[in-house]
């Protein structure tokens, strides 16, 4: 390190870097912005959770309602996130590898769930599968209710997180073009082999970011799920709905403790990403330098 700085007088910097002043100003702005907008609310959550000591906070998490809510939320994320990831990869492949009319329209349809207020999303699902609709009425008669049961919650979660993976992959796959896949195919690789050995390595970071976002949002979704869940304690109450109920009961320690757990769960997936980054640091550096 010191050798390098000796060899290179500080005044010169590589042409592909910003001036140190600009660099530090940007880093400071990043810290300041995230500090005010994200860390402060997060700290507020932890302060509230620990207001009556660690023991009280842990005790509130040991209750059956809290445990059931955590399990339900994890189950829902475990089902809806992989499904959305499969959709995302398929949609990104379809959109970026083929030319067809109405592409912008299709992308906009995929974006549509974001522009629907979560409450309206819940309403849509109730209108579609509720006991008063044709499909829902028939399903209830068969003994498989969708709304106010697990399938409805999964559907609502998938709806609000639907575009994440696809939207993450599309810009990256556009950026990369089709040349590498075409080369692989010309050399005689099969479609699946090309996909696994050429495409997936190229998009893995974008895929990871998409899955992370999708997962965080899937676990944190409240508005749409609240409409379709029926909020039955210990049964269809997810973590966010349970947090809301606890808060309404003046059990703010319990509510914020559960909220802190939810934040920590999101961080676990991020740690996973960090671990992957460190493990593949060499490869990453290589792709950047090649």
């Amino acid at each position, binding site marked *: 390190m010191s050798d390098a700085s000796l060899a290179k007088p500080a005044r010169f910097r590589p042409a*592909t870097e910003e*001036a140190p002043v600009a*660099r530090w100003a*940007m880093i400071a*702005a*990043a810290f300041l912005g995230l500090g005010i*907008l*994200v860390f402060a*609310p997060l700290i*507020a*959550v932890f302060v509230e959770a620990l207001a009556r000591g660690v023991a009280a906070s842990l005790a509130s998490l040991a209750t059956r309602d809290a445990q059931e809510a955590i399990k339900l939320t994890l189950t829902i994320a475990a089902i809806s996130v992989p499904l959305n990831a499969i959709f995302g990869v*398929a*949609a990104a*492949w*379809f*959109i970026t*590898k*083929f030319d*067809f*009319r109405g592409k912008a329209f*299709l992308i*906009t*349809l995929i*974006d549509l769930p*974001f*522009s*629907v*207020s*979560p409450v*309206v*999303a819940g*309403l849509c699902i109730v209108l*579609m599968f509720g006991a008063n609709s044709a499909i829902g009425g028939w399903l209830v008669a068969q003994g498989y209710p969708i709304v106010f049961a697990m399938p409805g919650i999964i559907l609502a979660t*998938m709806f609000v997180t*639907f*575009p994440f993976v696809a*939207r*993450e992959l599309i*810009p*990256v796959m*556009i950026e*990369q073009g*089709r040349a590498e896949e075409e080369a692989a195919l010309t050399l005689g690789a099969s479609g699946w082999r*090309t*996909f696994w050995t050429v495409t997936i390595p190229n998009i893995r970071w974008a895929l990871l970011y998409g899955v992370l*976002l999708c997962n*965080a949002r899937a676990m944190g*979704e*409240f*508005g749409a799920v609240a409409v379709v869940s029926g909020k039955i304690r210990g049964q269809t109450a997810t*973590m*966010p709905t349970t947090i809301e109920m606890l808060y309404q009961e003046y059990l703010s320690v319990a509510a914020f403790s559960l*909220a802190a757990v*939810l*934040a920590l*769960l999101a*961080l676990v997936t*991020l740690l996973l990403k960090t671990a992957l980054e460190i493990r593949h640091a060499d490869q990453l550096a290589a792709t950047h*330098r*090649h």
Partner: protein
Amino acid sequence: MGKPLIHRSPMPGLGLSMGITLTMLSLVVLLPIGALLLKGASYGLAGIWETVNRDRVWAALFLSFHLSLLAALFNLVFGLLLAWVLVRYRFPGRRILDAAVDLPFALPTAVAGISLTALYAPNGFFGQIAAEIGWKIAYTQWGIFIALVFVGLPFVTRTVQPVVEEIEREVEEASASLGASRLHTIRHVILPMLSPAALTGFALALARAVGEYGSVIFIAGNIPLVTEIAPLLIIIQLEEFNYDAAAAIGIAMLLISFAMLLAINLIQVWSRRRIGYV
């Protein structure tokens, strides 16, 4: 004219990827939204217009859309900066910053709303400081703006980040070696490469902000014509068991959002053609 619906391509997997895409899109998104539109259709265009064409609804729609636009613009600038800083620089605390970007999604919106209100209310940590200079944040449009920035924060950063990772240094080196200043390189080489992703992130942040309810409701004040957002009007109609009117406002919001997203996506497809990406 005579243009085929789908161009022939040597790429494999057309049937499979198209099948999965269209089936899941229909099941998860189009069918439920279709149910909403059907509800609106039974109400009739005139009914929808009558519900929407009122001062209070227009005021709420205007408030929701213009604050969402401002919040998304803020997120566009800040998100680009954040993505650049996180990928290009190495400094202590970088990983913590990186991890924090997703938190706005992980916190349930109600928790976010309660925490933000606690911080920005006149007796809160930031609210007190702002009150010193006579600036009210919570229970005004500023409060709504902050909540909307919060919920949309991850979008631009997370869509731009992977693209920044993919930028090859040679391009920048080439630009520099041809005599371009760093600023010139950023403006004319790097930003154009980032713009499809940034635009995507902007569109998503915008759409998300327009529909946001859970966090805004705590910090907004909810005074009709002043701080009443459009999603609240939908809730109000539902409380009155007025599904038709709720669907009408929902459809109005959906149409405006759809038009905005479509415009942004068309700009993208068009600029891609112009720049020469396939």
